[in-house]
């Protein structure tokens, strides 16, 4: 996590900073302490050295004064002078005890011991401390240090006068461990006395527990120096003082202090310092963590808020009530969240609403429909879906302009909104298509929604300068009867809408099966495009037999489609689909080309045949068709009057000037024109008269009704009238659907020109038809 990382970094930084400062402070204090202690110890040693010197001096004076008292005593003088040794000895002992002297003696003038307090001063021995004695002889008295055996002494030697010097009195303190201990107590240093010579240093007395711990005195100089020596037991400071020197050996006092001992009193201080530093560090860590959290918490909150916003939740503002930058950031963040929400609302509104009318768009309609479906599913009611399409809106747009078109759409939107209940949804699905959703009690109630919409159409549209009446077609589908998904319902409503449009009624309720059929037709349309290239299309030929002469030189070409999967598909089925899909033009041209190729082929084979073929009503809006026909006829060497183009009556009656122009164009190429299915359309004679046609083809429904035993005599009258009408207008008349001998005979009697039907032959493949012709009308 980035958050943790940052927090840790921040905490670490502060902790490290304080730790370094603490460390530096501790080191500095420790260093300063050690240095100060070392200096202090150094000074103490120097002082101690002076104290030792002073103390030894005081002892010397004590000795001197004491020995003078002794030698001034007349009794002592007398005892010495008279050789009263017991008295002398007792006097010596008594006097030594007074000052705790360790030794007292009387020497002869030549230095031999006359009497002494110590056993090692045998009577008669020469006093061992020759140098001192020599000095006494020179200067009448002497004080100083000397060695007797392995023991050092501080001695005074003064003469015993009676009144001339008759002997020497000697008084001395032993330089022993006790003395060293006493001095150590005064100086707080380890005191050792040692004889230092070329042979090395020999410790004579020491206050130390172990004489071997005594440090070497170093090179004794005048200047008193303190040296630092690292020993096994730690660092020690040492200084020395020369007490006596003879020849190359000297008696020195050594003062030494272990630094550790001097530092010992500072140990608690150091511990406290370390403790304080540790505490400070802990406090710092806590503080740093706290600070890091203080900083990172609002950052985390902001991060969480950002993720919330990313997830689309704008409801909760960031709650950071602070006066610092984070507070300002949170405020800015909340403002941003508000702005983002507003913008998103606007964008969403745009995404779900139609800009022109302000109505929900198709997307929102889907959503609402889904909601309604869900609700209906729970509550068990129905949902009516209406798809509404304005009729001929394109014409309004084209003729009156887009502004009027937009005004129409806007006004209708407003009307619809007013007309519907608040719980209903009205949407603009695109172009001139609107949709509506409304809850309904049952499928019978579904049409009430369409009826409510109808109310919006009661008055013509008031568009300011003009008023306009525009019709619409509505398809209605109902959940759950017609489907349970949004897509299905919308599609089926759409299908119903097209049904309404096709029927020319305001509204149509979807009926089950339409959709499947629609889907089937869509499949067929798609397959039909491949059918031409895939040789799935063929032509069959059905003879049209001359009723007067039995001639077999007329034939109608019929289009056949063998679907690879669905088998034979009726032209009645796929031709309208091709027409609706705008595919009829190429289909017609393929058929025409094939027919003329076959016609040319037969002609080359010596068969002079007139071939009829159907064209679509939609072919009549193709003004390039006449040229195509002429070119193709010429290409295959077919005389134009050998080709008859059949157009249904309804197609030619539908008007129009354009179709008529195409018909005339075709007529001009020299082909014959025939009105197919005559009798089913509401053609007027006036219209019929204007058409450049050559033939009437009576619809087979009439011919099939010509029964031998007929209850309805009007059929015969109608057919006969139609035949008469054709003939009167100079048209040939063809009867279709001739299946019985009766109808053939009847048609012959009625003077019909040509007859076509199963009585003569069913439609045949080209080769079969040729064989049928050659066979004289027999299979």
């Amino acid at each position, binding site marked *: 996590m980035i958050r943790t990382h940052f927090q840790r970094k921040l905490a670490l930084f502060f902790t490290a900073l304080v730790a370094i400062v603490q460390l530096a402070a501790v080191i500095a204090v420790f260093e300063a302490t050690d240095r100060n202690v070392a200096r202090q110890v150094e000074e103490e040693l120097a002082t101690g050295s002076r104290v030792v010197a002073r103390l030894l001096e005081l002892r010397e004076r004590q000795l001197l004064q004491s020995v003078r008292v002794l030698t001034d005593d007349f009794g002592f003088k007398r005892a010495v002078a008279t050789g009263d040794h017991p008295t002398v000895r007792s006097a010596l002992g008594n006097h030594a005890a007074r000052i705790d002297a360790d030794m007292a003696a009387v020497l002869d003038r030549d230095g031999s011991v006359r009497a002494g307090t110590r056993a090692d001063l045998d009577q008669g021995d020469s006093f061992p401390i020759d140098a001192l004695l020599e000095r006494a002889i020179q200067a009448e008295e002497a004080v100083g240090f000397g060695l007797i055996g392995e023991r050092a002494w501080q001695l005074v030697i003064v003469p015993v006068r009676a*009144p001339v010097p008759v002997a020497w009195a000697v008084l001395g303190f032993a330089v022993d461990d006790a003395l060293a201990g006493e001095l150590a107590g005064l100086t707080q240093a380890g005191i050792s006395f040692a004889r230092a010579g070329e042979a090395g240093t020999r410790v004579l007395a020491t206050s130390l527990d172990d004489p071997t711990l005594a440090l070497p005195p170093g090179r004794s100089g005048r200047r008193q120096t303190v040296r630092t020596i690292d020993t096994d037991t730690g660092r020690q400071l040492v200084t020395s003082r020369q007490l006596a020197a003879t020849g190359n050996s000297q008696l020195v006092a050594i003062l030494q202090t272990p630094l550790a001992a001097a530092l010992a009193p500072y140990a608690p201080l150091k511990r406290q310092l370390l403790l304080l530093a540790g505490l400070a560090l802990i406090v710092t860590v806590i503080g740093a963590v706290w600070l890091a959290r203080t900083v990172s918490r609002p950052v985390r909150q902001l991060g969480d808020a950002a993720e919330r916003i990313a997830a689309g939740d704008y409801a909760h503002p960031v709650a950071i009530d602070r006066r610092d930058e984070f507070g300002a950031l949170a405020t800015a963040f909340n403002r941003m969240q508000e702005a983002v929400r507003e913008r998103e609302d606007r964008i969403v509104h745009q995404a779900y609403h139609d800009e022109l009318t302000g109505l929900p768009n198709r997307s929102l309609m889907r959503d609402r429909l889904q909601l309604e479906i869900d609700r209906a599913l729970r509550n068990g009611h129905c949902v009516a879906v209406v798809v509404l399409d304005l009729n001929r809106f394109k014409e309004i747009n084209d003729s009156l302009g887009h502004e009027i078109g937009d005004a129409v759409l806007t006004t209708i939107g407003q009307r619809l909104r007013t007309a519907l209940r608040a719980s209903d949804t009205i949407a603009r699905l695109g172009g001139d298509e609107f949709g509506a959703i409304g809850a309904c009690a049952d499928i019978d109630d579904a049409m009430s929604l369409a009826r409510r919409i109808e109310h919006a159409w009661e008055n013509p549209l008031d568009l300011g300068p003009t008023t306009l009446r525009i019709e619409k077609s509505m398809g209605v589908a109902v959940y759950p009867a017609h489907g349970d998904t949004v897509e299905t319902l919308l599609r089926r409503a759409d299908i119903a809408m097209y049904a309404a449009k096709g029927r020319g009624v305001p509204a149509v309720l979807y009926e089950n099966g339409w959709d499947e059929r629609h889907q089937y037709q869509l499949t067929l349309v798609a397959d039909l495009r491949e059918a031409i290239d895939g040789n799935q299309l063929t032509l069959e030929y059905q003879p049209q037999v001359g009723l007067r002469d039995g001639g077999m030189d007329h034939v109608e070409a019929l289009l056949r489609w063998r679907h690879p999967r669905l088998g034979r598909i009726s032209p009645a089925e796929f031709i309208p689909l091709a027409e609706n899909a705008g595919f009829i033009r190429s289909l017609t041209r393929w058929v025409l080309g094939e027919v003329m190729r076959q016609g040319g082929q037969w002609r080359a084979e010596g068969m002079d045949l007139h071939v009829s073929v159907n064209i679509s009503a939609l072919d009549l809006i193709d003004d390039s068709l006449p040229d195509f026909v002429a070119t193709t006829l010429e290409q295959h060497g077919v005389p134009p009057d050998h080709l008859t183009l059949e157009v249904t009556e309804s197609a030619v009656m539908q008007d129009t000037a354009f179709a008529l122009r195409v018909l005339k164009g075709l007529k001009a190429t020299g082909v014959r024109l025939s009105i197919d299915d005559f009798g089913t359309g509401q053609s007027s004679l006036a219209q019929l008269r204007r058409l450049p046609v050559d033939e009437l083809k009576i619809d087979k429904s009439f011919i099939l009704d010509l029964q031998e035993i007929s209850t309805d005599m009007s059929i015969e009258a109608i057919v006969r009238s139609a035949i008469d009408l054709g003939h009167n207008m100079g048209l040939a008349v063809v009867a279709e659907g001739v299946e019985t001998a009766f109808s053939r005979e009847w048609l012959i009697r009625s003077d019909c020109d040509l007859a076509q039907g199963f009585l003569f032959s069913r439609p045949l493949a080209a080769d079969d038809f040729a064989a049928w012709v050659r066979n004289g009308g027999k299979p």
Partner: protein
Amino acid sequence: MTDRENCRERSRIRLGALGGAMLLIAATAGPVTATAANIEAHVRSDGSPVLNAVVHATRTDGASLPRPAQPEAVMDQVGREFAPHVLPVLAGTSVRFPNSDDTRHQVYSFSEAKTFELELYHGETARPVTFGQRGVVILGCNIHDWMLGYILVLDTPAFARTGNNGTGRIADLPGGEYRVELWHPRLVDGASPEPRTISVDDGATATLRFDIDLSPPRDRGQRGFGGQDDESLDEAFSR
């Protein structure tokens, strides 16, 4: 302090008076006759006349010299010094120790020739001491340690002590041959020079010359009474 200064003033006066008394004694001790022989010794050390050297003579033939019946001598104490510093006497001489100072003295000697003590005394109260055995008797005073005097006890009555001029004269001897010896307290190692033999005729004066080596004098001073002594005490302490 004022007491000490007063004392010093007084002792100076007494010293002057004593010098006159000594001269008087010398004059009476050696009466000069025209017929007698005299021995005169000139004692020098490093060319300087030596004071307080004692010359004494005995006849080489062993003949005794006339001696007084009750010989007496005086060792005075003047200015806290023995006066004279050296007193030669004939064995058997009774020596008086008058005290001319205003302080008491306690004169003693631990010498083999004569060991004695005179308890604290004042003026003429001390009993005389007879020195029968020949030898050197070193005198001290138990009160004043620096006081040092010598009594040289001799077998012969013929002796003389040198004065400041280093000359000692033994007078009124019968003519003859004499063995002359010399003693001084500061002879190096206590060794006297070789005795001299000299003949002297009546009415004549034989002159001898002694050159001796002496130890340097030890002026121990009078302790407790002068700044100088105090200084030496301080020197002792400061050593």
